[in-house]
C-alpha cells in the first residue's frame, strides 16, 4: 500500500488535508506524524502550515522537521501548502523577519506594505477564490488553466528563479503561487479547500513520480 506522511509540527488543523487525501486516494495510507522514521518510510511527504511563520519555524526547528525536510529533498515527491510553502523559502518579512528553510530561493513579503495593494484598497488577508495561471507541470494535469483556488494569506512569495515558477496569481500585484523544483512542489493556496480543482491537484500529487 502506498503511503503519504503529513508532517505534524503541532500548528493548525491537519484534519482537512488528511481527509482530502483519503478522499481522492482511498488506497493510500495517510500518516499525520513528526516521526522521522515514519516519514522516511513513506512514499510521499506533505508539509502543511497555517498561522504565523515565526511559530511555524520555531516548531519546525524544535521537532527536527528542518532536518527531515532536508533529508527527504531529492528522494521522494514532496508538497508544501500555504505556510508550508513559505517555510521552504529563504526568508519571510513576517514577525519582524524570520529565516526560513531555504530549500527554495525567494522571499516572503506582506501584501499590506505594497503600494499597489494600498492604492486599490485591497483587503488583507487575500481571502477567497482567485484565478491561478499555470506553467506546464504534471500536477496541473486535468485542471484547466485559470481555475480558481482558495487562498487565505497576508504574505506572498516571489522568486527571482523564474524557471521554478509553476503558477502565478494577481492581487494588486503578480506573485508566485506554485513553485516546482525536481521532486518538490509547493503551493500558496489550499488544495484541500479548493473543491474539485484542489482535489484533482492532490490526486495528481499522489500519482506523481517526482519528475
Amino acid at each position, binding site marked *: 500500500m502506498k503511503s503519504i506522511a503529513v508532517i505534524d509540527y503541532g500548528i493548525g488543523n491537519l484534519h482537512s488535508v488528511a481527509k482530502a487525501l483519503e*478522499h481522492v486516494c482511498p488506497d493510500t495510507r495517510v500518516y499525520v506524524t513528526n516521526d522521522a522514521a515514519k516519514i522516511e518510510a513513506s512514499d510521499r511527504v506533505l508539509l502543511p502550515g497555517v498561522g504565523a511563520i515565526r511559530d511555524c519555524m520555531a516548531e519546525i526547528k524544535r521537532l527536527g522537521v528542518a532536518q527531515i525536510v532536508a533529508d527527504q529533498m531529492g528522494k521522494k515527491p514532496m508538497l508544501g501548502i500555504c505556510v508550508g510553502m513559505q517555510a521552504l523559502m529563504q526568508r519571510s518579512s513576517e514577525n519582524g523577519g524570520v529565516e526560513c528553510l531555504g530549500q527554495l530561493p525567494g522571499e516572503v513579503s506582506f501584501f499590506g506594505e505594497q503600494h499597489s495593494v494600498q492604492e486599490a484598497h485591497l483587503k488583507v488577508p487575500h481571502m*477567497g477564490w482567485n484565478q491561478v495561471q499555470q506553467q506546464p507541470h504534471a500536477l496541473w494535469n486535468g485542471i484547466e488553466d485559470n481555475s480558481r483556488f*482558495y487562498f487565505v494569506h*497576508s504574505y506572498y512569495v516571489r522568486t527571482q528563479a523564474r524557471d521554478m515558477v509553476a503558477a502565478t496569481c494577481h492581487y494588486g500585484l503578480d506573485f508566485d503561487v506554485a513553485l516546482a523544483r525536481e521532486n518538490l512542489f509547493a503551493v500558496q493556496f489550499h488544495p484541500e*479547500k479548493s473543491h474539485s480543482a484542489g482535489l484533482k491537484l492532490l490526486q495528481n500529487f499522489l500519482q506523481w513520480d517526482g519528475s
Partner: protein
Amino acid sequence: MGLAKRIIPCLDVNNGRVVKGVQFLDIRDAGDPVEVAKRYNEQGADEITFLDIGATHENRDTMVHTVEKMASEVFIPLTVGGGIRSCDDIRRMLNAGADKVGINSAAVFDPDLVQQAAGRFGAQCIVVAIDAKSVSAPGEQPRWEIFTHGGRKPTGIDAVEWATKMVAYGAGEILLTSMDQDGVKNGYDLGLTRAISDAVSVPVIASGGVGNLDHLVDGVIEGRADAVLAASIFHFNEYTIPEAKQYMASKGIEMRL
C-alpha cells in the same frame, strides 16, 4: 480578473438540525447540517458557515461531531461560530475540521481573547462576528451599536469603532449582521455594511436581511462587502447558488462560476 466575491450559505444549527427563524423567533426546520452543506458544496458555494444557535454544552458536543463529519466530506472552507468562549473552544473546532472560528459575545466580554486567539492560531482563522443595530434617530448621522446574546443585550459600543478595534486585535475577517434586517428579507443594512467595510482593512461578510438576488448585488456594490451570507433564500429553495452567482456576475461582479 482576480479575487472573486464569495457567496456563503449560513446554517443555523440547533441540536444537530439546521433551523431558520425570523429575528431569532419562529424557528423552522431546514434539514441535516451535513446533508445541507453537501448540497451547497455541489451547487458551488464558496464557503459554508455553521452557527450553533443553541450553544449549550450538549449542543457543543453535537456540533463538534457535525463539523468533523462535514470536514470529511465537503472540501471548501468552513466557518463555525456560536458560543465560542475560549481558546480551548477554538482549538476544539479547528481540530474537528473548521477552517475559521467566529467569536461574537465573548469578544465583547473579553477582547483579549481575540488577541490571544489570533496570536495562537493565526489571524486568518479568527472571524469576529458583530451583531449591530441602528441607534440613530431619523435625520441624525447614522450610528450603530453592537448587541450580544443573539441581539438581545445592548452594549453601548459603537459598531464601527468596535470593528476597527477587533481588527487591531487580530481579527482576520468581520462577519457583520444587522439585527434590524435579520430574517425580514428587505436586504442588508447597506449603510452599516459600507461604514464597516470602509473602516477596516480585512474582508467583511454582509449578513442579515437577504430576500432576493438584488440584495446580494447591493451588498457587494453599495455595501462594499467582500462576501455575502444568506440562509433562508437558499434553504427553502427560493434561489439556488448557481442562480445567485450567475445573477451577480451579470451585474459585473467577479464570481467563481
